[in-house]
């Protein structure tokens, strides 16, 4: 039994709103809870013994990639790009993509999780290759960096924020800001610019994409030992508007509040996407978010077997042996190499040598994502900032919504909005509390949150689907970015290689790709 709807809404949105939506006539909202692999995942976790595989159910492949998220698909993609054709990807869930998966309606494709990447620099070879393959590079700028196709660069206006009954432009609330607020914003910008242009003795930047390219000079990594909140305090950056924005950034990318985020990660969010002082790298997006990249990768990797729960991976003479549970019983796969492209808390259950190792696992945050199908757009008030790609509600614990039809330019009529809700609290507690929540509770919460900024929205909603990501993303808490355990977890064990975004300490597409490609390179080099 989950909490009652009233308690549930109260918990998510705060008591005043709960009263408002609990009291109204409850209408049943169509939709469903989307399966995110939880059932098979937990069954695998709770398995008491590794099943025996009958002789007839063993087969062989060159490289087995375990996990069809961004890291796994990237590894398989890079292997095939470089001549390995004997690659098999296995995925626990019904579909590939992990938290970057997407969906589609007759109106538009839409994301189920991650929804943008930052335009790569010329030295991010794998990212550049990924865009080149798609014919999505339209030229090169004065720095020699690729210019991503205009159709994919996030369409202006990219952000707006709801505050005190109005939509305002951008994410930082400049209307009504005091001189002190603006002075602090300028100082914050200057501090970020300083870190964005900082180089160590070897010329490595402190903050760049991916994390593996960042300097490990102690001057920079010392930032990992305090919280972003404490760092801001030390700089005298106490402006409420600025602190709201930095908290939002941490919730948005890390599922944490600034007070719990590593200062290194907090600064990374702002500094790594700056190209030069005052100029940011382009945000690149698709109607279905990063699911578009998933679709491209999946089309390039060869065979993918879904609904296959790997329960055991072990190094043997001449390669690896993998045992998995299919719907019709256990199967075995022998391969020269394996890429374990799953989160570390899963790897610990399936990789033989990891099972005994124990150790501290990285902190994982939970997310709820809803796709809200609308038959028409809610009314907009003249004089407000116009609808943007990302529409942020300042006084909501949700992150607001992203419009799936914005990038393509469909500005009227039916659409799908993707609503994001991070849980910056302890992941285990959230998972436990929300385990029993049903679709009706989620849908009512989503609609109540959106209805506070769009009063006419409830009548326009035709469907709300919800995904609950119990282990949504690794979180860069204080000390996590330069933690030795994390840094050593990527080292291969014999022919077993590891690739996952949690090996970077932060959940970004570019990080998952980086580890996938690194694992592929290890195999190609051996």
């Amino acid at each position, binding site marked *: 039994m989950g909490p009652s709807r009233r308690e549930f809404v109260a918990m998510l949105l705060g008591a005043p709103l709960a009263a408002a939506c609990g009291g109204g006539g409850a209408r049943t909202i169509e939709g469903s809870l989307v399966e995110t692999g939880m059932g098979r995942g937990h069954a695998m976790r709770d398995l008491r013994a590794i099943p025996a595989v009958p002789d007839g159910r063993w087969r062989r492949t060159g490289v087995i990639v375990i996990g069809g998220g961004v890291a796994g698909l990237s590894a398989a993609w890079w292997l095939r790009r470089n001549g390995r054709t004997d690659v098999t990807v296995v995925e626990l869930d019904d579909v590939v993509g992990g938290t970057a998966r997407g969906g589609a309606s007759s109106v538009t494709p839409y994301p189920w999780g991650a929804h943008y990447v930052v335009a790569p620099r010329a030295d991010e070879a794998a990212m550049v290759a990924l865009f080149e393959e798609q014919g999505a590079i339209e030229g090169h700028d004065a720095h020699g960096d690729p210019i991503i196709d205009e159709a994919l660069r996030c369409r202006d206006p990219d952000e707006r924020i709801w505050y005190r009954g109005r939509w305002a432009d951008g994410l930082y609330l400049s209307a009504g800001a005091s001189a002190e607020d603006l002075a602090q914003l300028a100082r914050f910008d200057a501090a970020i610019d300083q870190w964005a242009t900082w180089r160590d003795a070897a010329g490595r930047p402190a903050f760049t994409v991916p994390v593996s390219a960042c300097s490990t000079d102690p001057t920079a990594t010392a930032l990992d030992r305090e919280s972003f909140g404490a760092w801001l305090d030390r700089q005298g950056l106490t402006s409420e508007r600025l602190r709201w924005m930095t908290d939002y950034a941490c919730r948005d990318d890390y599922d944490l509040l600034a007070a719990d985020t590593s200062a290194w990660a907090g600064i990374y969010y702002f500094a790594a996407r700056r190209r030069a002082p005052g100029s940011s790298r*382009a*945000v690149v997006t698709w109607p279905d978010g990063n699911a578009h990249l998933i679709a491209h990768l999946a089309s390039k990797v060869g065979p993918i077997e879904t609904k296959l729960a790997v329960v055991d991976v072990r190094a043997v003479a001449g390669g690896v042996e993998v045992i998995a549970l299919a719907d019709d019983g256990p199967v075995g796969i022998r391969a020269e190499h394996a890429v374990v492209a799953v989160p570390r808390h899963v790897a610990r259950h399936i990789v033989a040598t990891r099972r005994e190792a124990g150790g501290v696992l990285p902190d994982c945050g939970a997310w709820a994502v809803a796709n809200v199908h609308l038959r028409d757009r809610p009314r907009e008030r003249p004089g407000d900032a116009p609808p943007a790609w990302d529409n942020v509600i300042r006084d909501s614990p949700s992150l607001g919504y992203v419009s799936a039809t914005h990038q393509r*330019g469909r500005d009227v009529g039916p659409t799908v909005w993707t609503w994001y809700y991070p849980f910056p609290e302890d992941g285990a507690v959230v998972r436990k509390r929300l385990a029993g929540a049903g679709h009706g509770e989620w849908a009512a919460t989503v609609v109540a949150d959106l209805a506070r900024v769009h009063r006419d929205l409830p009548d326009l909603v035709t469907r709300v689907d919800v995904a609950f990501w119990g282990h949504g993303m690794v979180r860069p808490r204080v000390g996590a970015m330069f933690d030795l355990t994390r840094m050593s977890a990527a080292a291969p064990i014999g022919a077993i290689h590891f690739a996952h975004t949690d090996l970077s300490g932060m959940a970004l597409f570019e990080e998952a790709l980086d580890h996938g490609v690194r694992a592929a390179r290890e195999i190609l080099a051996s």
Partner: protein
Amino acid sequence: MGAAAPDAAAPGAADPPDGPAPAARPLPAPLLYINVFVVATCGLVYELLAGTLGSYLLGDSVTQFSLVIGLYLSAMGVGAWLSRRVDKHLARRFIEVELAVALVGGVSAPILFVGFAEIAHFQLLLLGFVTVIGILVGLELPLLMRLLQGQVEFKDLVSRVLTFDYAGALVAALLFPMLLVPELGLVRTSLVVGLGNAAIGLWGTWLLAPHLGKRVTGLRVRALIVIAILVGGLIQADHMSTWAEDRMYADTVVYAKTTAYQRIVVTRGPSGFNLFLNGNLQFASGDEYRYHEALVHPAMVAGDHPPKRVLVLGGGDGLALRELLKHPSVEAVTLVDLDPGMTTLSTAFPPLAQLNRQSFSDPRVTVVNDDAMVWLESAPANWDVAIVDFPDPNNFALGKLYTKRFYRLLKSKLAPGGAVSVQATSPLFARRSFWCVMETMRAAGFVVHPYQLAVPSFGVWGFGLARAEAFEPPAHAPAVALRFLDDDALGAMFKFSADEKPVPVEINQLDNQMLVRYYESEWRKWQ
């Protein structure tokens, strides 16, 4: 205008006096003359409203006004004639008629306004209102005169009633064009005048009390209900045309509709009618030919071959269609306009349908109601000419239709040797905006020849003529019937004066929408 003329005949019906109630106190005659005055004013305003709406919405103002006046006067005659059938309860009937006029007259313009947008037999509805209001107004004065009969000498009665009646007509004739319509608009004028009638009716329950007996509560309740309906109408009137709109436009608002996509307003003035989208003038019927000939014909002669397949993006008014259909080579035209409300208006609004020469009924024309950018993605790539006529880029939804992304997409959809023309705002008033459009088209790979002309209602207006490969701007106007464009005018359009020449600009791209920013900053200076 002799609106009150039939009234003169009314008391001539030599009915036996039905006489006031035996014990009644005399009525306050001077106050009743004020009644006559207001009744006359209101009556004429309804007539003027009907005439104005008829001529604005259906065109041909001489016919419409003549029809409305004639019908109104004869209906008043019918009313006067019918007054003889009223034998009892004169005062009560008078107040009831007054309230009926208030209700029917008051809601006439709002209902006609809505009716025009929604139903086919607008003229019948219009004339129906005119008839009913005329009959009711025709009933009023005879009843009033009979109430005063016996109390005032007949020659004084006739002289005073008619004096106040004609004076009321004069006031109405002056108030209507000078105060009511400019300040209130047609819809509010109708409702406010209806309130005047209702107030007279309510006041009458006290004035005529000696003749009403005890049962006045029912009448007062009815009066208050009518007042409530009319006040409700005033509150709702913003849905039809807003206060701001009625005051903003120099001419009278004759059509206003908020579609899912935009606010369409048509105004009518001495020089013809104007169409506004979201408050921005799209064309004035008096000089639109200069704009549309310049928009269409250069592109029609700039390609390698006489164009067969033509694409119009925007242009839901059908005026660009009218121009390009003059070219006999044209075999098929697709017009893509987001708003079905606009393309429907262009076929159903008689003055506009006349102006575009029923171009939407031409069998060569196909209409698509979709966003041009979304539609283009999956459009065929075989257009000999594309005419791009979007509203000015004053918001981000429109700004995307002027981006490099959009022009690249458009270029990819042209047949080899095809040509494009694009409306690009004013190179004089919005110089950076204009050159931003030109440079953005060039960045998308077009070879562009900018051109401009004067359109009196807009000012100097600019366009871009473009092809995918190098070409010379055309030297000869096409051999079709044109009013503005000849070889000289064509040649002159490609020359820019010093104050319109290129300025450095950034390219308008999807992720920076520079054009919307240029446009906002430049037009702000002129508004």
